[in-house]
């Protein structure tokens, strides 16, 4: 059983080294994307262009990138011998609303945690600093409301 906090949410370990190294791999993927393809590695840009209308011939490459994302936890599981652990809410109405907001908001704002939060900040883009500041703020506020005002 996962240990729970006093307010009933699963506790997670502070993992600065693994998180920094994992972040570095994300950054490396973004650098190689620019070096090889000349593009920004923004997941919402890649995923949203899997849907019509199609404006270029990049469909197969985008599908392959997403397939790589999907395959990653299975590679980790095969190498470490332990399945990847995660806790996803089983409140399906909440997850439906969350998915709609994340998808709409990412495309409407021209990027998500990867496009603005990693690639944009690394390019010192003023737009990305604003976008990242805004989604971090509403993220903090949403969790505060859900966990400490409304309650689980």
């Amino acid at each position, binding site marked *: 059983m996962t240990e729970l906090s006093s307010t009933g949410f699963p506790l997670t370990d502070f993992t600065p080294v693994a998180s920094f190294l994992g972040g570095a791999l994300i950054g490396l993927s973004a650098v190689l994307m620019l070096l090889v393809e000349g593009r920004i590695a923004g997941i*919402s840009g890649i995923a949203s262009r899997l849907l019509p209308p199609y404006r270029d011939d990049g469909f197969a490459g985008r599908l392959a990138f997403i397939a790589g994302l999907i395959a990653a936890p299975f590679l980790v599981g095969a190498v470490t011998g332990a399945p990847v*652990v995660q806790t996803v809410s089983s409140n399906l109405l909440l997850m439906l609303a969350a998915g709609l907001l994340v998808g709409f908001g990412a495309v*409407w704002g021209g990027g998500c945690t990867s496009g603005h939060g990693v690639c944009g900040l690394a390019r010192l883009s003023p737009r990305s600093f604003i976008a990242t500041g*805004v989604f971090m703020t509403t993220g903090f506020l949403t969790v505060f409301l859900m966990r400490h005002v409304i309650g689980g």
Partner: protein
Amino acid sequence: MSVLVNLALGLLFGLGLVLSGMSDPAKVLNFLDLAGSFDPSLAFVMGGAVLVAFLGYRLTLTRERPLLAPRFQLPTRRDIDARLIIGPALFGIGWGLGGFCPGPAFTALGLGEAGTLVFVPAMLAGMWAARALAERRG
């Protein structure tokens, strides 16, 4: 060639998400829970990613062109409009509700949790709606 490169880059990106813990919504939500079970790990994910990308982008952009494309395609916009506030504001609310942003949602897809299987199609529908609305408004 490009397909294989993209598969490898997606895999590398996904390995980073899994190793860093960002693929676990519980860890994301604890990062966002400053007043409760705060877990600062995600600041280190962002730190590692931005540091490597910052240095790597500088090196890469000293080249004339990318290896497999005729030219670099970088965003050029610098204007601040309402969409740049409204979009990320909605995105952050959804992120705080579910603990998923787009990358981790895809790495979670094959693990088959019901919440993920609802989230990913809803996210794609939201993306499609935003593109359609943006095209109608011109």
